[in-house]
């Protein structure tokens, strides 16, 4: 990889190699066979780029950030070249009235993909999030009317996110709570993996429909397996080798992070497989447990983040190796006791009879 790409920001064009590589990654992430790569590439290179309207509500823009600051710039530029981004508050050159005009124009043209980032406050008429004098819920309803499909990027847009955490003072909800008559796909995460967003977009472009989802509206190709089941620290869980606290010997040896609060056993995401930032890392690989950020209401259900979660069955109670060691020690103790009794009885007998009795 050309190192200057790291330093040069987002290039305007995508190299052929980078383009095919990104298509291949996305195809693999979607769980499609390699033969589909040309089809995905064809769909991605279609000059008729789909119009995208990108709305921001109650959020930190971290989802956009993680997408655009992916260390592999081809990914960001691919997404930006793949779609005609007609409205995006962070990225658009236009501001104020001009930006609002762009949004109106895009909405009037219709048939766009609506990407929503951030939660939507409903309490008190939605006054807690206003853009250009209009409430978030008004803007969303207006933009959703003519949208072909909606992608909710990030946990805020999908389920309300941090502002929906108890007591949810602004009454924040996800897109699917507001819009009921449009196909909505959730790409949750805090932030979500850019590859999963790219794959969802490419899936839509290739097949002209949204990918199959689970009960929470998440694409199965990305959120179909548990973090725990693909975790590189899983063998330590099975064996009962845990980091008991941050910085202890077990932690330094790379043992399982379950006891320091990892929520991997209850979280569905492909993080351990696809990883982040193109440098092969993800939270667990750098020593912090999974927070469960792809799950609905994770701020309520997954906290405290650094305490173990209840009701996860550890094989053998403590892990099979640890538990076998314990049972082994007990068995050894019983054996020693049995041998001691045997020897004691023998000696006592000899003392009592004063002679060598063998039988």
């Amino acid at each position, binding site marked *: 990889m050309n190192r200057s790409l790291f330093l040069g920001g987002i290039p305007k064009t995508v190299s052929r190699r980078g383009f095919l590589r990104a298509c291949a990654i996305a195809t693999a992430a979607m769980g499609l066979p390699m033969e589909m790569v040309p089809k995905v590439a064809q769909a991605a290179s279609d000059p008729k780029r789909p119009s995208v309207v990108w709305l921001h509500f109650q959020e930190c823009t971290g989802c956009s950030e993680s997408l655009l600051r992916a260390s592999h710039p081809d990914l960001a530029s691919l997404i930006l070249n793949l779609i005609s981004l007609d409205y995006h508050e962070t990225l658009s050159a236009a501001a104020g009235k001009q930006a609002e005009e762009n949004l109106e124009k895009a909405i009037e043209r219709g048939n766009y993909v609506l990407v929503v980032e951030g939660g939507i406050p409903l309490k008190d008429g939605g006054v807690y999030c206003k853009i250009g004098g209009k409430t978030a819920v008004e803007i969303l309803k207006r933009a959703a009317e003519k949208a072909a499909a909606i992608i909710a990027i990030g946990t805020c847009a999908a389920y309300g996110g941090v502002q929906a955490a108890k007591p949810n003072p602004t009454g924040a909800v996800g897109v699917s709570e507001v819009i009921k008559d449009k196909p909505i796909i959730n790409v949750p995460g805090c932030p979500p993996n850019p590859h999963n967003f790219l794959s969802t977009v490419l899936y839509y472009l290739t097949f002209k429909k949204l990918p199959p989802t689970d009960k929470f509206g998440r694409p199965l190709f990305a959120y179909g397996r*548990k973090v725990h089941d693909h975790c590189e620290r899983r063998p330590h869980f099975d064996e009962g080798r845990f980091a008991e606290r941050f910085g202890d010997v077990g932690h330094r040896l790379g043992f399982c992070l379950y006891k320091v609060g990892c929520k991997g056993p209850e979280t569905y995401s492909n993080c351990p497989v696809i990883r982040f930032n193109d440098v092969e890392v993800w939270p667990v690989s750098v020593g912090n447990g999974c927070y469960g950020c792809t799950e609905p209401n994770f701020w309520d259900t997954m906290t405290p983040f650094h305490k173990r979660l209840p009701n996860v069955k550890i094989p053998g109670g403590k892990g099979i190796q640890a538990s076998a060691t314990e049972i082994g020690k007990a*068995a*050894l103790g019983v054996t020693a006791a049995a041998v001691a009794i045997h020897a004691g009885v023998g000696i006592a007998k000899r003392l009592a009879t004063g002679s060598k009795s063998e039988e």
Partner: protein
Amino acid sequence: MAAYEKKYVWSVLLRLFHWTFAPSIFILIVTGLYIHWPWTNTWLEGSHQFTMAVMRWIHFIAGMLFTCAVLARLYLWFFGNKYEKVWDFLPITGRNVKNLISTLLYYAYLTDHHEERLGHNALAGTAYFFTIFLAVLQFISGLYLLYPENGFFVSLGSALFGTQQEARFIHYILNWYFAWFALVHIYIVVWNDIKNPEGLISSIFDGYKFHKKES
């Protein structure tokens, strides 16, 4: 009709050894073969289903019991009663070599004459000695595989077996030896129990054998 007298042969500790050793071997063979070749379709494995983990767990626990049983038997080799001591049945004395040969001929249906022993006959004793020796190798290789980072077992295991993979190979081969031994042992014990009214099978439950009274 010959008269028989009841003789106490197998101590409580030896019987405890036997009834720990025998079931643990059975469990170890079944779970060991599973670990070697997981025959169930475990692609659904997740936090709710730990077929492999459970099999390994049972295998390790059975292995611990196996190890303890073997250690108890090793103790009895030197401190057991006279039938349990190792020199009672090893072919290292003229009497035992003669017994070994006559037992071999007897088992091969070549002669009806054989010396009845209250303890092990020399052939059985030699086989048991060999089995315990292999059992020691088996539990050392097992502990070497179970604790690949433990300094003691690593130095002992690598000196005896070499690498983890070589130890695993020997561990696997010995697994088959114990399967074979269990079959032969049960066959010969039943055969003996039919041929001789000495109460061989019941002796491992209550410790008593029946000995033909010298007349």
